[in-house]
C-alpha cells in the first residue's frame, strides 16, 4: 500500500476547506448563530438555560457539521478528480477517510473549540468542565463528520444534494447525540456515557470509510 496518496488527499482536502474564501468559517457562524437564537426563543431564565445548554449545543453541532459536507466529494465528482483519486493505487477507503478527517480538522474542530464560549452564554459555570465538554464535542463531532461523509459520498452525483445528505446522515447521528448529551448531565449512566461516546466515534471511524469508498465507486461507475 502506498501511503503518499493518502497524505496528499489529506493535505488537498485541508487546503480545499480554506480555498475560495473562508469556507471553514461558515459552520462556525452557523453554530454560533443557532446557539444565540435559542435563548431568544425559550427565554432568559438562567436555570432553564443551564439545563438545556449542553443539549442545544449538541444539536447545533450536528446541524453545523452538515453545512459544508456537501462540498467534500461533490466537487471531485464534477471535475473528474474523483477518477484520479480512485486510480492512485491506494485504497479508496483510506483516501475518503483522510479527506473526511481533514474536513473535520478544518471545520469540525473549530466548533468544539468555540463551544466553551457558547456554553457560557447558556449560563454554564466557568470551570474545567467546559474544557472537558469541549473535548467531548470534538470527539462526537468526529463521528458526525464521518457519518456525514457517508451521506456526502452517496449524494456526490446529486445536484444540490445538501438536503439528501441531511436525510441520510441525521439518523446515523442518533447514538452520538444520545451519549454526548448524556455525558454532560448528572443523571444515571452519565459516568460511563463518555466511554460510549468514544465507542460510537470509533465505530464511525472504522465503518464509515468503507461505506464512503463503496459509494464513491458507485458515483464513478
Amino acid at each position, binding site marked *: 500500500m*502506498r501511503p*503518499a496518496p493518502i497524505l496528499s488527499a489529506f493535505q488537498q482536502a485541508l487546503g480545499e476547506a480554506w*480555498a475560495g474564501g473562508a469556507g471553514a468559517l461558515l459552520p462556525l457562524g452557523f453554530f454560533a448563530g443557532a446557539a444565540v437564537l435559542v435563548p431568544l426563543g425559550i427565554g432568559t431564565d438562567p436555570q432553564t438555560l443551564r439545563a438545556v445548554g449542553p443539549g442545544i449545543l449538541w444539536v447545533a453541532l450536528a446541524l453545523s457539521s452538515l453545512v459544508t459536507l456537501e462540498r467534500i466529494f461533490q466537487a471531485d465528482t464534477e471535475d473528474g*478528480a474523483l*477518477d*484520479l483519486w480512485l*486510480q*492512485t493505487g491506494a485504497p479508496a477507503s483510506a483516501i475518503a477517510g483522510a479527506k473526511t478527517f481533514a474536513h473535520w480538522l478544518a471545520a469540525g474542530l473549530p466548533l468544539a473549540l468555540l463551544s466553551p464560549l457558547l456554553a457560557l452564554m447558556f449560563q454554564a459555570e466557568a470551570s474545567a468542565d467546559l474544557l472537558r465538554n469541549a473535548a467531548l464535542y470534538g470527539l462526537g463531532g468526529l463521528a458526525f463528520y464521518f457519518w456525514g461523509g457517508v451521506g456526502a459520498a452517496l449524494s456526490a452525483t446529486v445536484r444540490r444534494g445538501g438536503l439528501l445528505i441531511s436525510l441520510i446522515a441525521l439518523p446515523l447521528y442518533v447514538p452520538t447525540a444520545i451519549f454526548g448529551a448524556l455525558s454532560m448531565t448528572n443523571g444515571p449512566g452519565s459516568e460511563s456515557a463518555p466511554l460510549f461516546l468514544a465507542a460510537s466515534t470509533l465505530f464511525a471511524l472504522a465503518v464509515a470509510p468503507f461505506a464512503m469508498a463503496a459509494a464513491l465507486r458507485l458515483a*464513478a461507475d
Partner: protein
Amino acid sequence: MLRGVTEVLLSATGLGMIRGERVLFTGVSLSVAPGESLVLRGSNGAGKTTLLRILAGLTRPEAGEVVRTGLHHWFAHREGLKPHETPRTHLGLWAKAWGSDSDLDSVLAQMGLKRPADVPARYLSAGQRRRTALGRLLLEKRPIWMLDEPYTALDAEGRELVLELIEDHLKSGGGVVAAIHGESGFVPTNEVVL
C-alpha cells in the same frame, strides 16, 4: 525501465456493457503489449468512453474481465482541476500523491505552461487546462496511458506535442489506449470499432 512490464500490459476478454436499456457493446476482446497502441473508434454515444472507463477499472462491465499488469495514467474530458489550482500546484499535488520526484519546472516547460504556471485554473483557457492535465503523464512513468479524446481543445502545436509524447511513450516500451473520434495522427497497432 518501466515498472511491472510483462508480455502484455493490458488485456480484456468478452467485455459487454449495457447502459439504460441499450446494449452498448458485447464480446469486445483486446490486448496491448509494450510498444503497442490501441485506438477505440465509434460514433458519438457508441461507448468509447465507457469502454475506456471499464479498461481503467472505474466502471464495472456487465460481462467479461480486464487484466492490467501495472499502473496506468488517465487523461479524460474532465481534467480534475479545481478552479483555484494553478498548473504548478496541480502537478505538484499529483507528483506528491504518486511519490514522484519529477522536476516540475521542466514538466511545465515541456507542456508550454511556463507563462501561466501560477495562474489559477479558472483563468486558464481550455487548451491550457488540457495541457496541465497532460503534464501529469510526465510526472511518473506508468506502463499504460489511457487517453479519452486527447486532442480536444488543443491547438496545432498542442496536437503535435501530444503526438510526440505518445510516440516517446511507445518507444520506451509503454502502451497507449486512446479513444479518438477524428484523425489519430499516428498509425495504431490495433483498432477497436464499436
